[in-house]
């Protein structure tokens, strides 16, 4: 087995298994540990300039990846007109840079504040480093290997589908520039890290709040009888 096969043919499955099994394990064995572990209570001013651009930046960019994965033809169709391609790529780059800047500020904030070091675990450090490498590789790819939104649909989408279909077609990615390859592997590393870091807060997005009545009352007697 070549190194490329290991990286692009085997590791994705290891990452997926770790993510799925790890998430179930952590959720069932230790619900208490599910938390966004916010540090705003210890430091709030710098957090604003880091957390807000980081989160909005990464959310938009991740949504872009998801759309290109699910609807590659729509993306290619949209990109058919150059001006539309420039708008898409320009916006994606802006949000990508927002994410990089935000994350860098968050790292600087954590390094400079002794209070925050008290609530920084080893896994937090690992996660921050991987995330930083990943977003830098992403922005690098966007700048130097144009136009990513188009070739993503032609190469990355079929590659990702080939993994989901259990027929990994590593030829699609094994000849990519090393920075792009780093970004692909980095994505799977983050997937594998998900259940073992504070990233689990992604999985507890409180969507129920949208339709829940404001007050929550819990009855221990009525619930046994199936009432409200």
């Amino acid at each position, binding site marked *: 087995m070549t190194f490329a096969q290991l990286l692009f043919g085997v590791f994705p499955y290891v990452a997926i298994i770790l993510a799925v099994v790890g998430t179930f394990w952590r959720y069932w064995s230790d619900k208490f540990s*599910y*938390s*966004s572990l916010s540090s*705003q*209570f210890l430091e*709030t001013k710098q957090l604003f300039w880091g957390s807000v651009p980081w989160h909005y930046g990464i959310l938009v960019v991740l949504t872009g990846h998801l759309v290109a994965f699910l609807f590659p033809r729509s993306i290619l169709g949209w990109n058919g007109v150059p001006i539309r391609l420039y708008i898409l790529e320009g916006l994606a780059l802006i949000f990508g840079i927002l994410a990089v800047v935000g994350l860098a500020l968050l790292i600087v904030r954590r390094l400079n504040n002794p209070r925050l070091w008290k609530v920084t675990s080893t896994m937090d450090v690992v996660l921050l480093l991987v995330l930083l490498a990943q977003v830098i590789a992403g922005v690098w790819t966007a700048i130097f290997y144009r136009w990513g939104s188009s070739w993503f649909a032609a190469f990355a989408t079929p590659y990702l589908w080939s993994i989901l279909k259990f027929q990994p077609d590593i030829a699609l990615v094994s000849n990519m520039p090393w920075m792009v390859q780093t970004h692909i592997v980095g994505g799977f590393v983050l997937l594998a890290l998900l259940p073992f870091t504070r990233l689990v807060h992604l999985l507890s997005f409180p969507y129920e709040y949208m339709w829940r009545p404001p*007050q929550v*009352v819990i009855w221990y007697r009525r619930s046994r009888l199936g009432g409200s």
Partner: protein
Amino acid sequence: MNVRAQVSMMFHLDKCIGCHTCSLACKNIWTDREGTEYMWWNNVETKPGTGYPTRWEDQDKYRGGWQKNGNGSVHLRATDKLRGFTNIFHQPYLPTIDDYYEPWTYRYGDLFDAPAGDDQPTARAISLITGAPIDIEAGPIWDDDMGGSNIYAANDPDFSELTEPEKQAFFEMERMVFFYLPRICNHCLNPGCVAACPSGALYKRGEDGIVLVNQNVCRAWRYCVSACPYKKVYYNWKSGKSEKCILCYPSLESGQAPACFHSCVGRIRYLGVVLYDADLIEETAAAPDDELVQRQREMILDPFDPAVIAQAKKDGVHHSVIESAQKSPVYRFVKEWQLALPLHPEFRTLPMLFYIPPLLPVLARMEDGDTYNVDATDYFGSLDKARIPIKYMANLFTGGNESHLVETFEKLLTVRMFKRSGEVGDVSLEKVEEMMTATGLTAEACEEIYRLTSLPTFDERFVIPPMHREYATELMGDPYTFKAETGFGFRGKPVRGL
């Protein structure tokens, strides 16, 4: 009508001596852990004063509680369905630990290990967060007994509607007067913390109304801290979970009083069930400011009324809880005698901890230049010359409605004069009867208020309803599931997440 039971509380402020025993009893049991050192689920503030966290009553800064809409409903100041998501990455109104204080201890070892020298060794203060030496800049009772009052008490938000001369008159050193305000979670009927939690981790227990945080559901979105106008939900920076007063429910469930109640030296605290109409929550919370106190009283139902009892049974209130409500001292003080008032009703959370405002500091005034005295010629008249302006008290306890406070103080004075006429005999009966007619109190009521205020037994102060944990779902399971576990329902150790 939708009848629910609420374990409710009453603090008699004339009896509070500000000893902080309640705070320490609570701290030793619940918040003596890393991440919770700064939390005081029970704290005692000197009023006038800025309190803990500093200026917590200033909702222009903290944005706690509810605001009225035009259409007879209310909305949270700090968050809503949309901002619950858009502000999730950074909350503009979240207090930080510096609004409370940085917890510290002392390096006591230095006292023993210091090398011999000309100076006495000192134990340096070190932060309980970082472990590094710090200069202490604030504490949980920093302006206790009006220490540094020209700096701290002058910033009391309740002075907002007083004129500058009125404020200045207050701080003349020789004429200073103050009282204590012990605070715990109000276990509100319309809790802001519960409504603000995106995860649904906070909830009100149906059977007794205690507000709790489910530690396994909390995800540290922190909206509860912002939304509680009393700042009685605390963020544990170590575990990444919010925590709050649990009214010592494990004690209540075994028929014992909560720690702060049990340990109260001045015996100022009363606890008992009241029945209330849950259908009225929203419209009561949206009432005009000066009607809030009266409307909240109207929500509380008469536990002797057959119609209320019938509806309560229909709504699943256990008959033993109804019986307990009939003996509740809180019901008598709040509803029957209308003596106890909620703290800052204008926050519109419908707090269920009531206070009898302190009469003594209000009446205190200088005579002969050096002694405090009470005006003995016209008892009610002395209220006009109150040492602590009624306006200040109204900002605290009635949402600005001064007439409620005057009524309360007049009743307290009537009881006092009723007893004085009997015990000392220097007040004429006609005078007392005149006062009773004016306040609507009978001789029997005066005697009962006196007895329940001054001579109550332990069991008269704390009428704890049967909590009926035998109905609890978790006890229907296999008891061996919980064998060898620690704490209340925790599996494994509550350590910070990865």
